[in-house]
């Protein structure tokens, strides 16, 4: 019975369409009106039934069962209701037929060890089973997908929270470092350096100038900071191949970027103004 809920076939659709068409057409009186007189010789039909009737035969030879109640379907288009009525009619007939067959002393159901050719071949039944399995699988898959979608939504939220937490932590530790630095600079050296960080060495421009002319370990003068950076960037000795190219890592490396510095008035002002430009030629000639 459950099959009836599934989609109709083409034929069913077509026929239902035609039924609808008929209804629509009849309402508009477009179909030829049925003629008035229809033949229905009831007496002759009854006589004919009596003539060909095999009522005298035993039930076991006729095997017919008439339902106790006539089928009444409100709407023929309602598949489920209609098929249910047919099912009930069949079931009633089967129950009554079982009794009749028993009465006649004949076997009703086949014994378990009775094997014979079936109406549908094994291959066909396998296909039916496969289709059922596929259907079941499809339902399961869609349900699983739905669940995953929900989980993903939830998971995203969790991930965002975690990232935020990490950022907060980072900020907090940086703040701490900054306060320690400040304290050190102001000469308050009473406290022990908890972090063992060489706070002076990281990126303070003023100190680099002072280091000019310093001798290295082997007596040679160390290059100034700019030279060092340029060497680093463009290479000084060693293999160059591939080193001067951007890689995914290098592109996404944001270590040299500081949002604070970028937003600071000083930095942006420099960029906006630029260095004092050499005046144009005309201007120069005028002043000279």
């Amino acid at each position: 019975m459950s099959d009836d809920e599934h989609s109709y076939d083409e034929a069913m659709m077509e026929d239902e369409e035609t039924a609808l068409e008929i209804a629509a057409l009849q309402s508009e009186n477009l179909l030829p009106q049925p003629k008035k007189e229809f033949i229905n010789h009831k007496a002759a039909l009854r006589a004919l039934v009596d003539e060909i009737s095999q009522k005298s035969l035993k039930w076991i030879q006729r095997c017919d069962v008439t339902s106790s109640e006539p089928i009444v379907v409100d709407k023929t288009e309602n598949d489920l209701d209609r098929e249910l009525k047919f099912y009930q009619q069949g079931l009633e007939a089967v129950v009554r037929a079982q009794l009749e067959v028993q009465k006649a002393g004949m076997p009703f159901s086949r014994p378990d060890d009775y094997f014979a050719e079936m109406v549908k071949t094994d291959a066909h039944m396998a296909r039916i089973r496969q289709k059922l399995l596929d259907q079941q699988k499809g339902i399961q898959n869609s349900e699983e997908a739905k669940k995953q979608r929900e989980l993903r939504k939830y998971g995203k939220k969790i991930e965002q929270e975690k990232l935020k937490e990490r950022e907060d932590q980072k900020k907090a530790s940086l703040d701490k470092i900054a306060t320690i630095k400040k304290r050190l600079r102001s000469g308050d050296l009473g406290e022990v350096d908890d972090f063992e960080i060489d706070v002076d060495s990281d990126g303070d421009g003023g100190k680099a100038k002072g280091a000019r002319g310093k001798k290295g370990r082997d007596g040679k003068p160390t290059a100034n900071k700019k030279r060092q950076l340029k060497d680093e960037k463009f290479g000084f000795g060693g293999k160059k191949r591939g080193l001067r190219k951007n890689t995914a890592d290098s592109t996404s490396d944001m270590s040299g970027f500081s949002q604070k510095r970028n937003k600071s008035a000083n930095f942006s002002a420099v960029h906006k103004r630029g260095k004092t430009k050499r005046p144009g030629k005309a201007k120069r000639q005028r002043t000279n």
Partner: protein
Amino acid sequence: MATLYKTAKSEYQDVDDVLEEREKRSDVKQRILMVASRGVTYRQRHLMNDLEVLLPHCKKESKVEAKQDIDLLNELAEIQNCNNVFYFESRKHQDLYLWVARAPSGPSVKFHVQNIHTMDELKMTGNCLRGSRPVLSFDANFDSEPHLQLLKEIFTQTFGVPKGARKSKPFFDHVFTFSVVDGRIWFRNFQIVEKDAQTGGDMAKTAKPTLVEIGPRFVLNTIRIFEGSFGGPTLYENPKYISPNVVRAAVRSQKATKYASRVADTQDREARVKANPLPVDPLKDVFE
């Protein structure tokens, strides 16, 4: 000696034996000739094959072209020793008509077959023994009208597999249901399942069996009932029957009316404008 023995034996024969023998002799012979017209579509042909598989007492003939001389089928039935004929007549490669006739003396019925679903379709999961006898279940509506009574009798004799028919099996594992809904006859074929669906074991004695549909499905719309076989005087005409040709023509004409009405409208308008010319404005040329 032999004759003496026979007469002696017959004298002492049991009354029961005689009765049994008489019953055996009264076994009805029903044989169906199944013929298709030329031009059946695959679906119609598959329906015919399904019925052939389900009814072991039928004999399939090759396709015939009997548009004019439908009497030919009576002769064919006689040659094949059949007393019933199922003639599947296909028109325009789309409409299927089924003649069910008792050859050679009649009556015969012409149906329009609609909503065909064959056993090949995978949504019907039942299966039954090839050649087992069906229980014939009729809707109580069949007893309401004489023509339905006649149809019931004809169906009992054709769709019922006679007891002891060749290639038939003496068990009942499926049920044919015939129901009257919407003035048409709906055919369904169910498997009788007497096993527990979950465990596969036997069901309790009191429990009702369940039904699983095997197929095919079709709906028969009675057109006419004739007294003879493939002809003779009409005994019944279905007042509700509308030929599919008429339906199609009406649909076409309805589509055509859209254009026709538009043309008529424009013609109307033109005529109206011509009939009622605008009155001449006396002040029209004042400013010129």
